[in-house]
């Protein structure tokens, strides 16, 4: 990379996908837009990887936009947590966007494909912005960019139900964003600043203030709506199930992770663990919600007949796992949450891609439509099963690593009940994965369907699927990439927060 550009990487991380979006609209034909979107995603991954390396080597990067110093101008501030989140989001984008063209062509009208790719780029830009910004109001702006793009993407799904799902997502998301805005306003009123580091440094002076507690409540609830934390999850299942498969793969892989990032950033970065947990005991709210989410998400998923909706419900449970880890407020719990963010992003993206491949061939993803699919699409199904086993937490998959670290973190805190919930959640996942395997391999295809020979998912989708599933197995064997980095990130986060309130 050109040396002069390296200094501007934080800005480029956002600007690259942002510039690709209008280009996608301008070039019009779907194929050219697809090429631009692929370039944008891959370039973003390269930038994110470079940023992570820089941050791990040299510590926090600060970038003053427009040259205005921190509390007055907007600061981009990238630490380990931000860079790690960026890598998660851009990895999903860089695998899904380039390789899933066939799936998009099957599910989105030709006249709107360029708009579809532009919306994908905007969503990516919004998420990148959330992860790099060090300014609270700027966080709100990027949250809204990412969210609006996500509503548009869901609305690309077929027919009225997708539009209704998008509108319900929009209403819930806007209420969440407005809550975040109220929280930011209260924080600003209490401290006079919008810069996260500055706010954080000034908080001890006003720590008795009720306004601060109120601000904390609004921010946490607002972000919890955005990440679909149980019981604020109502918008998610339909939104992900009715969106085009590629959107499901991208959003399930990245959007909720970014919201979890925002929660960790606000709770640990801005308010600090001491304030949030020792003073406000927020774990007494978050842990029950998360535990209930793990169980409820799993149970409801078990009874779904639409496989996409089944895995959308499974996302509700998996997000709850991440919150559970973070709410343990220990280095072990936090790093477990981060590892699970990475692993779940890869596995869920793989699963939705596999479902996209099945939709491409059969036009439907109900359990009944899957009957006998094991013989017709063995590779697609195998990929789906490998990724699902990762979700269960079977040894030698990435999911095992994250569930295991989570379990260990819970046991370290003597939280036996939570440990039971974690294991029970895994069993539920095993059960609904079992339903799919049973239908696909043991049932015979419905009479009347043409089932001669094999008809796999399109090659690109298959490649992306196996790339993600393979990565999930690889990360299950070599944990230094995820656990190693996550432990350093979590340690730094707790260290920077500790001692500020004494």
């Amino acid at each position, binding site marked *: 990379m050109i040396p002069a550009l390296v200094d501007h990487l934080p800005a480029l991380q956002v600007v690259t996908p942002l510039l690709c979006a209008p280009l996608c609209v301008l070039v019009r034909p779907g194929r050219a837009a697809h090429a631009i979107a692929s370039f944008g995603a891959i370039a973003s991954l390269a930038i994110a990887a470079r940023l992570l390396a820089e941050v791990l080597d040299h510590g926090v990067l600060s970038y003053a936009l427009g040259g205005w110093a921190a509390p007055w101008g907007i600061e981009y501030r990238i630490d380990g947590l931000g860079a790690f989140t960026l890598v998660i989001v851009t990895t999903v984008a860089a695998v899904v966007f380039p390789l899933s063209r066939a799936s998009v062509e099957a599910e989105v009208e030709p006249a709107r494909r360029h708009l579809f790719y532009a919306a994908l780029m905007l969503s990516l830009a919004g998420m990148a912005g959330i992860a790099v910004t060090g300014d609270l*109001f700027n966080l*709100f*702006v990027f949250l*809204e960019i990412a969210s*609006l793009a996500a*509503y*548009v993407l869901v*609305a690309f799904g077929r*027919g*009225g*139900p997708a*539009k*209704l799902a*998008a*509108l*319900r997502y*929009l*209403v819930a998301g*806007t*209420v969440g964003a*407005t809550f975040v*805005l*109220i929280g930011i*306003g209260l924080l*600003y*009123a209490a401290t006079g600043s*919008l810069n996260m580091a500055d706010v954080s440094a000034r908080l001890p002076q006003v720590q008795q203030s009720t306004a601060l507690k109120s601000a904390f409540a609004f921010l946490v609830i607002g972000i919890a709506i955005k990440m679909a934390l149980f019981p604020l999850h*109502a*918008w998610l*299942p*339909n939104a992900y199930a009715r969106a085009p498969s590629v959107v499901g793969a991208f959003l399930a892989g990245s959007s909720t992770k970014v919201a979890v990032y925002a929660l960790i950033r606000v709770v640990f970065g801005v308010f600090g663990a001491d304030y949030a947990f020792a003073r406000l005991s927020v774990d007494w709210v978050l842990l029950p919600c998360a535990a209930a989410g793990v169980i409820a998400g799993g149970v*409801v998923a078990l009874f779904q007949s639409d496989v996409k909706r089944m895995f959308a419900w499974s996302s509700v449970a998996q997000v709850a796992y991440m919150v559970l880890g973070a709410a343990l407020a220990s280095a072990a719990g936090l790093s477990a949450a981060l590892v699970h963010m990475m692993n779940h992003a890869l596995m869920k993206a793989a699963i939705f891609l596999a479902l996209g491949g099945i939709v491409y061939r059969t036009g439907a993803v109900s359990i009944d439509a899957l009957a006998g699919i094991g013989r017709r699409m063995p590779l697609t199904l195998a990929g789906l099963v490998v990724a699902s086993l990762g979700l269960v937490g079977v040894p030698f998959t990435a999911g095992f690593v994250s569930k295991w670290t989570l379990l260990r973190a819970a046991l370290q805190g003597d939280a036996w009940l939570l440990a039971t919930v974690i294991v029970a959640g895994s069993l539920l996942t095993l059960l609904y994965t079992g339903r799919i395997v049973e239908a696909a391999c043991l049932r015979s295809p419905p009479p009347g369907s043409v089932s001669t020979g094999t008809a796999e998912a399109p090659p690109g989708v298959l490649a992306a699927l196996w790339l993600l599933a393979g990565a999930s197995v690889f990360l299950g064997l070599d944990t230094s990439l995820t656990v190693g980095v996550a432990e350093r990130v979590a340690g730094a986060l707790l260290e920077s927060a500790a001692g500020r309130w004494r």
Partner: protein
Amino acid sequence: MSLSGSYHYLAVVLLMVTGLYVVMVNTNLIKKVLGLNIFQTSVFVFYISLGRLEGGTAPILADELSRYANPLPHVLILTAIVVGVATTALALSLVVQIHRAHGTMEEDDIDDREGGATIS
């Protein structure tokens, strides 16, 4: 706190609760969008009240003046208003499409027609 200092905030709370109540209770989609707008506007009132400075005037510099309102909340709310109208526009176009597809704007009716398939 004296009443003269807090009635702005009291009004903000009332507006916000009214807006959110409309969003949660009404099943008519246009009404929901209206409620969302009321909800958002109440936050704008909150921010602008924060920016008010006793004895100050609008933050447009003039030689003979020295006390101005805080410009920062104004800037933030300018952005938030635009974000709000963008959301409204998107929401309303979704409503038009839902009406085209289902022939109604009542969530209840749509759910009934789908045979209770929507577990949300």
